[in-house]
Structure formats: structure tokens, C-alpha cells
């Protein structure tokens, strides 16, 4: 019987090897393949209620976090942004708004300098610049999950964002883009769900232009002990309940909370970003470490 058992055991071992090494999915231990699948399913099921859940879980503060991210980016017109795991388009829309307002101010300033133009010429310049209200800025929203992209596209239509947006299906670990393409790469609340973070960082490095910036907005570790206790209490007692009540999906939000705990803390992520080749890597804690923005440059 021992002879029979060995090939079976070997086969199982081989299959396990093919499926990939052991990984964490929340507090469970799964293989790489299983993890990808499970995460895909999580976001497939939450896609429609994603924004509502974000608002209720964070009491709307996630909007401020995302605003801070775009302000930190301070994009100038003509910037090409790649928003990875950007599913429902929050960062993309904020980017477009920001660039549009900067562009308006630029045009106003240009006009002030040319006050000696005749009104005819001013009118003609409006026509010319009307088709350039974004100043050639573009944002590419890339997500691995079709459902999230669908929700994002619908939102864009609903809110009236027509130009400067592109929606691409892609895996952060293997981006379907060429080298040295983008000015800024952002990943907001997405890198936690990537199975091989190092690969994603390497891809980010690859697709960025020299001088390009990597920005990562993600839940991180709270060092303040009192706040950490309150935060844990809120995370494990309130959020899954909200998930069940609002989205009808307890398990996905249990996964969310657990994955936050499993994610590397600020310093470790900073080291990983440096390993990928970025320079001037630093991070900014928001709300005492509940969320952190990591930034690095490809120099």
C-alpha cells in the first residue's frame, strides 16, 4: 500500500507546486492560483455596491483620502496617468477635474498677457482651446476585473466624463503596455489585492517614463496603541456587519478587513518599492496610519 500511496502523494505535491506557493487570503492560507480566483470573485460580487460600501465603511472619508492623493500628485496639463486597479474610476475622475481647473487657470493667465488682442482674436482662441480643455492629459484606467470596469464606465457616462478616459482590462502583475509610457502610475486601495506585489512594482517601474512617479494609496498599520484597538474593534465588529446589511455579502468584507491586517506595514512596503528600483521613496500617513500614501520616482 505504501507503494501506491507514494505516487498519489507525489502527484498532489506536483499539483500544489503547479498551483503556486502558499499565500494568505485574509487570515486563510491558500495557493497563489486560488488567491487570484478568490479575489476576482470578491470584487465581482461587490462591484455594484463598491462605492456605497466605501462611503459607509469609511464614513465618506475615503473621498478625502483620494482628494489628498490627487493633490499630492499635482498633475500639470499634458500628464499621462495610469490608474491601476482603478475599477470604478474615483482617481481618474478626480484627476480629470484637477487638470481641467489647472488648464482653465492657465488659459486665463495666457489671456491676461494678451490683453492687446482684438476681441476677434480672443474669440478665435476660445474655439482653438475649446477642444483642448484637458491640455492633452489622458488617464488610462486598468483593472483586472471586468465587473469593476463596467461599473466605472457607467459611472463615467452618468457623470458626464467624455474625454481623456480609456478603460483597459489588465493584470497589475503583467501590464499590457509598453515601456516608458506613463508620467504617473497610481494604485489606490488595489495593491493589497495583488498576489505578487513585487511583480506589480516591477511592472510599475517598467511602464513609467524616466522621471515618472509611482503613487500608492493603501490601508496601512496604525502604530498608536489606543487608536489601533479602536480601529480593530471597528474593523472586525462593524464592517462585516455593514457588508451583510448593505451589500448582502459578509465574507467579502471579512476578507477586506483581514487583508488589511496582512498587508505589509509602511516601512516594509517602502523597502519593497525601493527594491523595484524607485528613488526618493517616502510615505505620508493619513489618519495616524489608517491609510498611507507611498511615493517613489523612476530616476
Amino acid at each position, binding site marked *: 500500500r505504501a507503494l501506491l500511496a507514494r505516487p498519489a502523494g507525489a502527484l498532489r505535491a506536483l499539483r500544489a507546486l503547479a498551483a503556486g506557493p502558499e499565500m494568505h487570503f485574509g487570515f486563510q492560507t491558500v495557493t497563489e492560483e486560488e488567491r487570484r480566483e478568490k479575489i476576482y470573485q470578491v470584487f465581482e460580487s461587490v462591484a455594484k455596491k463598491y462605492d456605497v460600501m466605501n462611503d459607509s465603511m469609511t464614513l465618506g472619508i475615503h473621498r478625502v483620502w483620494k482628494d489628498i492623493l490627487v493633490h499630492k500628485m*499635482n498633475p500639470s496639463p499634458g500628464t499621462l496617468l495610469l490608474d491601476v486597479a482603478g475599477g470604478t474610476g474615483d482617481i481618474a475622475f478626480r484627476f480629470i477635474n484637477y487638470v481641467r481647473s489647472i488648464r482653465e487657470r492657465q488659459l486665463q493667465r495666457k489671456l491676461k498677457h494678451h490683453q492687446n488682442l482684438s476681441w476677434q482674436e480672443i474669440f478665435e482662441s476660445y474655439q482653438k482651446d475649446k477642444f483642448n480643455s484637458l491640455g492633452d492629459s489622458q488617464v488610462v484606467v486598468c483593472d483586472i476585473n471586468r465587473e469593476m470596469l463596467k461599473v466605472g464606465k457607467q459611472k463615467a457616462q452618468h457623470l458626464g466624463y467624455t474625454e481623456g478616459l480609456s478603460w483597459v482590462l489588465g493584470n497589475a502583475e503583467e501590464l499590457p503596455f509598453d515601456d516608458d509610457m506613463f508620467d504617473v502610475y497610481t494604485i489606490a486601495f488595489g495593491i493589497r489585492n495583488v498576489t505578487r506585489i513585487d511583480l506589480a512594482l516591477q511592472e510599475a517601474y517598467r511602464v*513609467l517614463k*524616466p522621471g*515618472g512617479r509611482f503613487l500608492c494609496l493603501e490601508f496601512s498599520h496604525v502604530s498608536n496603541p489606543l487608536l489601533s484597538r479602536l480601529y480593530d474593534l471597528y474593523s472586525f465588529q462593524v464592517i462585516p456587519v455593514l457588508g451583510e446589511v448593505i451589500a448582502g455579502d459578509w465574507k467579502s468584507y471579512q476578507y477586506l478587513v483581514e487583508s488589511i491586517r496582512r498587508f505589509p506595514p509602511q516601512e516594509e512596503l517602502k523597502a519593497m518599492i525601493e527594491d523595484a528600483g524607485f528613488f*526618493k521613496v*517616502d510615505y*505620508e500617513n493619513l489618519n495616524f496610519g489608517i491609510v498611507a500614501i507611498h511615493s517613489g*520616482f523612476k530616476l
Partner: protein
Amino acid sequence: VRCQHYPPLRALQASAVLRRVSDEHKKEPFTSSSQQHFDSPPAGHQPEQEPQGPRPSYTGQGGQESEDYESEEQLQHRILTAALEFVPEHGWTAEAIAEGAKTLGLSVAAAGMFHSDGSELILHFVSECNAKLSELLEKEQKQVQLGEAEKKPIDAFLRDAVEARLRMLIPYIEKWPQALSVLLLPRNIPSSLNLLTSMIDDIMHYAGDQSTDFNWYTRRAVLTGIYNTTELVMMQDSSPDFEDTWRFLENRVADAMTMSNTASQVQSTGEAVVQGLMGAAVTVSSAETGRAVRA
């Protein structure tokens, strides 16, 4: 057991990491004093600093590169120097820095390395001007030592030095008031004050000031006052080639000279008066004793 895939990129990166680690101990020599003033989020040598301000921000050691490669600071200097030519158009802003980065072939996002109010750009410019001034004064001093030029009297020397330094502002004069206001932001005051005082110190040093008493401070304070007021006058001067400003400068320097002469005159007069009083007192008391003796 985790199997790690090692794509060929890893080997390069491993060597990059090694290079970085080995060079962490190799300190970049600070070639100009400018570097220590405004690299306040140090990309260089210090370990993590305590959080400053409402939102703690931690700057890491980006990694020192070996001498073949440019360090981050050198690259930042290059970007800022390139950005200066866009200042007349965009002002001292992140836009100018972005344009500068574009000319170097970098993405506009590289401007994110600096503050969005353009502080680093202005501080960089000021320290570059100070360095140029030092070079100029050094050259002049050499010429005097070699006997090729006459040693200037002190007031002419100070006048020329301040004028030379202020003339460097002329290409950017329209946006300079904006720069001055940024330099007065509390965050920038340590650095800008540092740059100002070292520049004044430089000028006084080349002027031959060897005082070791309190005069050291008064002289520099007076010169700082002259420099600042002349700079402000220059901001709203519309005369051809800023003639009014140079005349103002001349008058202020003359005032300062007169003041120092007057001060020493007052001192010697005061001494003379005191001595006179003492003498009168002695005379009176000896006359009294003489009268007492005779009577």
C-alpha cells in the same frame, strides 16, 4: 518552501541594491554650502527623522550612487537649474520645475519631488547667485593680490559687491516679489536667513573686515540692512538700468560710513568732555583747598 522566480531583471536589481548598500557608507562630499541649507527632507545621510507638522512624512534614503552615476541631489540640482529659464514665464512655481524637467528628458511628474510652492527653486537660485558672487569677489581679490588692480576703498567695495549681487536678479525681476514672499514663509526662514547671512559674511570677509569685537555684528547687521532695503527699492524701480536703485545704494553706504565716523567722533568727544569735567573738578577742589589754606 516558496519558489521564487528570478527573472533576469532581478540580477541587475540585486547588483543595484548591492551598489546602494556599499555606497551607503560613502558620503557624498558637499561641494557647495548650498546643499546643506535646503535639503531639509534629506535624501542623503540621516536616518528617519521625527515627524514634522500635522501630517508626518518620512523621507527615506533613496540610496547613494557610485561616482559614475548621478546622485539624486545632483539630478535635483540639474532640474532646478533647467527650470530657471522658465521662471520669467511661469513664475517660481511647480510648473516651471515641470518644464525644466521636460527639457532634461524627464517626465513632468518629476516636479513632484519638490514642494508645490517652488521654495526649493528659489533657494537654489539664491544659493547659486551667492556662489557666483563669491567667485567674483575671489577673482577680484586675486587681481588685487597680483597687483593687477587697485584695492578699492571700503565704501566703493561694498557698493560694487551689493550691486553685482542685485544685478543677478534682473532677468527675474518681475517675479522676484513672489519669490521674496515665499522666502518669508516660516518653513523657509531658517534656510533663507542662513543664505542671507552667509552672503553678507562673504562680502565683509572679502572687504577685509578683521574685527574680533562686537563690531563684527554691527557691521554685518548694517550691511544686511543696506542690502535688504536696496533690494526692495529695486522691486519698484522703473528707471533705465535701475539707476535710481544704484544711487539709493550709494547714499546708504555713504550714510553707513558717516555713521561709523560719527560714532567714533562721538566716542572721542565723549571722552574729551569727561576728561574736561574731571580736570575742572580737580581745579575747583585744589582752588578750594588753596583758599582754605590761605584763609
